């Protein structure tokens, strides 16, 4: 049993709903995109190509981030999910360096400072409803410990100075739910499940469709498989970047 994800680029609309679902579910800090959707362009007018490419953490079977973590805060579970222990992480950011996919996000600020401060969530008129939670939609599942290893691995904005990234929504999959991005994808371009079982949707995709993985040559053995289109090249130019600053 190993979790994997299939991203069907023939279906992806580049709408970035997955990014928003992730942000609300995981309460990640402003400017952090555990799920990120590239919109990029190739060629010149009128022979232009525009493509979309969702980029979650690749949950590599041979994860470079896990290898380099000096304290074992970044670890690989038996079910293939690569997680970060927020209580263990020392904030050296080596995993971020090692990852060729750019999926890691560091808590540069205190957690409560990263929640879209332009809006004053501590407004006293909100308090009777929210109990002072910041953000007001703070997901309580993120405060717990997860997995048989019982480590603090779910969700974002855990603490200042620790690294975070996509968890395949560990707090959801242990409830039998799909990751938030997969659930919300308006065109079902994201599929999640056991990649070793040919009877699951993921397994079927792997058996029936030609798939490829990002930066296959890096030897990281990602668990995220892409269908359709083709990998971006060095000539691909990103367009419509979100405001990813802290």
């Amino acid at each position, binding site marked *: 049993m190993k979790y994997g994800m299939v991203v069907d680029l023939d279906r992806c609309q580049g709408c970035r709903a997955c990014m928003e679902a992730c942000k609300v579910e995981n309460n990640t800090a402003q400017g952090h995109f555990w799920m990120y959707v590239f919109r990029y362009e190739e060629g010149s007018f009128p022979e232009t190509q525009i493509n979309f490419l969702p980029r979650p953490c690749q949950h590599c079977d041979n994860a470079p981030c896990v290898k380099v*973590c000096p304290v074992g805060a*970044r670890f690989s579970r038996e079910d293939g999910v690569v997680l970060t222990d927020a209580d263990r992480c020392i904030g050296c950011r080596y995993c971020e360096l090692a990852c060729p996919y750019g999926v890691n996000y560091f808590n540069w600020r205190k957690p409560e400072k990263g929640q879209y401060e332009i809006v004053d969530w501590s407004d006293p008129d909100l308090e009777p409803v929210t109990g002072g939670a910041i953000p007001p939609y703070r997901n309580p599942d993120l405060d717990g410990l997860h997995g048989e290893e019982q480590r603090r691995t779910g969700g974002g904005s855990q603490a200042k100075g620790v690294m975070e990234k996509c968890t395949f929504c560990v707090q959801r999959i242990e409830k039998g739910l799909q990751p938030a991005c997969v659930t919300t994808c308006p065109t079902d371009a994201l599929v999640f499940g056991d990649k070793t079982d040919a009877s699951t949707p993921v397994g079927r995709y792997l058996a029936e469709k030609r798939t490829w993985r990002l930066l296959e040559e890096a030897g990281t053995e990602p668990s995220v498989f892409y269908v359709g289109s083709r990998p971006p090249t060095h000539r691909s130019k990103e367009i419509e970047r979100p405001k990813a600053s802290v």
Partner: protein
Amino acid sequence: MRRFWTAACLVVGVVLMVVGYTASAPWGTESVAHSDPRFVFAPAVFVLGVVIAFSSALVYELLPEKRRH
């Protein structure tokens, strides 16, 4: 005696290094927590080993001469 303690120090240091190192890197285990050392503070044991090994030089030089007493 001096040589004995120096050698002992060296041996203890090396042993601690070996123990600390192998315990820090639990290769071969497939458990969920295989990223963890086999026991907590194993890396400290390794570092301690390094320190003790080098301390053998101190022991060798600093150990008071018995005959002086």
